[in-house]
């Protein structure tokens, strides 16, 4: 393992903790998106570019988008109550 791989593993571990500790769903969408990019970089550094591509598109884009849209839906329902 080279130092880049060790660095990214440590960062993934650290930001994984940050994702868990983020309690506000709106903040979570942003933190999880950043974590998704980190995971993508990790897959890339461990020579799995196919998985890295899927990870970046799903983890950094689609997942936060779904969280945001679900939040918008919930807020709208709460406001009308």
């Amino acid at each position, binding site marked *: 393992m080279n130092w880049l791989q060790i660095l990214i593993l440590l960062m993934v571990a650290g930001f994984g903790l940050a994702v868990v500790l983020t309690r506000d769903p709106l903040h979570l969408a942003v933190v999880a998106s950043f974590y998704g990019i980190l995971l993508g970089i990790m897959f890339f550094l461990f020579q*799995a*570019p*196919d*998985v*890295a*591509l*899927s990870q970046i*598109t*799903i983890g950094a*884009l*689609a997942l936060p*988008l*779904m969280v945001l*849209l*679900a939040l*918008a*839906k919930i807020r*709208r*329902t709460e406001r*009308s109550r």
Partner: protein
Amino acid sequence: MKPAARLTLFGVAAATFAAVVGGAAAEIRPNGWYADFVNRVTVPERQITDAVTAVNFDIRGFDTLGEEFIMFASVLGVALLLRRQRDEWNGPPLDRARGRGVPAPSDAIRILTVALVGPVVLFGIYVVVHGQATPGGGFQGGVVLATAPLLIYLAGEYGSLVRLAPRWLVESAEAIGAGGYAVIGAIGMLRSERFLENWLPLGKAGDVFSGGTVALIDLTVGLEVAGGFIVLLLLFLEETLVRRDPA
């Protein structure tokens, strides 16, 4: 649940998890004999330079068919959950409705997002059709393609998005993509009694039209994934922007 019971439950679960993961890790072969085997086989036997695509769409193509229908079923589930209830109605989109406090996107965001739509579509198509030659393929390219309508929405053009990607169009794309995979597999079965047999000429490794049926399956998966994600996007946007609860 009492804290003590919860802690015990966690302890048992963590110990089991550690034992299973540890056992699995001990079994990993460091140099990956399966990877070496696949890497040796895909170019001479299938003319595919991206071994991952060869495994996904040919060697273990049947598994991917199942995965594709998992995606199909989950989109169906979301559509079922977000359908219009009997007492709900659709109003004008919230970001256009008069007197609503939704700020319009700034000029910088509009220009950037609209300028990105073309390159994103081109890149998505590139990733889909080069699945057998370079990393990527139908799934990754399909998701990249699905971000194009999202960009249109971000530019504040919900109306254009609905006109450009009407529900019937993206739903048919998704259905054709999902069904196409099964049909390609069935044609192989008719020709040689083996499901997902690679029945097209293999071409030359590295070309866009190499890998026989893998190139075709890449296209169908791209259609299915792009269609599925755009359906999800349209459903959520309709739910948040257009749907009104009974007053």
